[in-house]
């Protein structure tokens, strides 16, 4: 089972077409193994991206160097998945 230890989800607030195009270049690039949950599209829609722990430093440096504002929305994806798994197992037990 694939694990996501230390992987983070970042929310990037794009403010203009230039920022959208900077991010769009990364959508089809496989270098940082990014997984765009919500792709860059228009100014008023934030971009959500899952960043593997190994790429975090590089990706955050890229965002900073390009002046792109971001916030971390999920600190550790695996921790969240573990919680959800516990909750599902709990519910399953209740049904039985």
């Amino acid at each position, binding site marked *: *089972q*694939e694990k*996501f230890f230390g992987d983070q*989800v970042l*929310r990037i607030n794009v403010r203009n077409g230039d920022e959208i195009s900077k991010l769009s270049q990364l959508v*089809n690039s*496989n270098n940082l193994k990014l*997984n*765009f*949950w*919500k*792709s*860059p*599209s*228009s100014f008023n*829609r*934030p971009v*959500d991206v*899952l960043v593997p722990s190994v790429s975090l430093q590089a990706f955050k440096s890229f965002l900073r160097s390009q002046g792109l504002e971001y916030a971390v*929305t*999920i600190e550790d994806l695996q921790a*969240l*998945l573990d919680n*959800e798994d516990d*909750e*599902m197992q709990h*519910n*399953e037990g*209740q*049904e039985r």
Partner: protein
Amino acid sequence: SSNNFNYGAYHSLEAIYHEMDNIAADFPDLARRVKIGHSFENRPMYVLKFSTGKGVRRPAVWLNAGIHSREWISQATAIWTARKIVSDYQRDPAITSILEKMDIFLLPVANPDGYVYTQTQNRLWRKTRSRNPGSSCIGADPNRNWNASFAGKGASDNPCSEVYHGPHANSEVEVKSVVDFIQKHGNFKGFIDLHSYSQLLMYPYGYSVKKAPDAEELDKVARLAAKALASVSGTEYQVGPTCTTVYPASGSSIDWAYDNGIKFAFTFELRDTGTYGFLLPANQIIPTAEETWLGLKTIMEHVRDNLY
């Protein structure tokens, strides 16, 4: 419910299929579980058919959920909706009159292989699980695989991409099963796809910025539906055509439906705070389903009153 299925929890594929069976057993005169095909890994694909009429192919609405397997709130909302339809028939005048005139087909898990994979291997899996010859990457995006400007804007030809369109239109057996069923039936008037997670209600087109011929009517209906939805707990939906509201996306289900004569074609992006991505806490399932139901009902009432 006569059984102890917990509508406020996430469930396995087997549990959802079992509950579909229970609903059909509890309401044999109204609901029937129909097998419409199978997935790449040979799992059955079941719809619930809700009908008060016999024999003839009555006008019908298709409710499609779970095409992107990780969007668990959509499968959960769909199974809640199934129970809601049977419970409210002959109690709520709106759903009663809808069912007096039309049939409803509800597909709660449009991508069964992906759904099982999200529960056993990778929670964030989106695509089908078909093999791609010449690539180690698996699956195609089943919402880029329909024959509507296939392989156009907003889809990728890279099998490793999350939006890979597949080798050809309908290459994914899950998509083909729905297409074949709808075409054979021949009298669908509405097609509504349920996704998550950004509170949008969209209509064609996704493959182009061109305006759909019925855009004004669809926009009006969508705004009414969004207003009804918001009346439950204030969840605000953005409304508009897919291409300009979220992003360009070719080969999508609702564009195919619309281009094939199903005028009332909509996509919901259900509630989520965005904080948890595709991990909407289970205690949000019922509130989400309840508000979505009002949106769905508004659209179905419009279909009922505007059959063509």
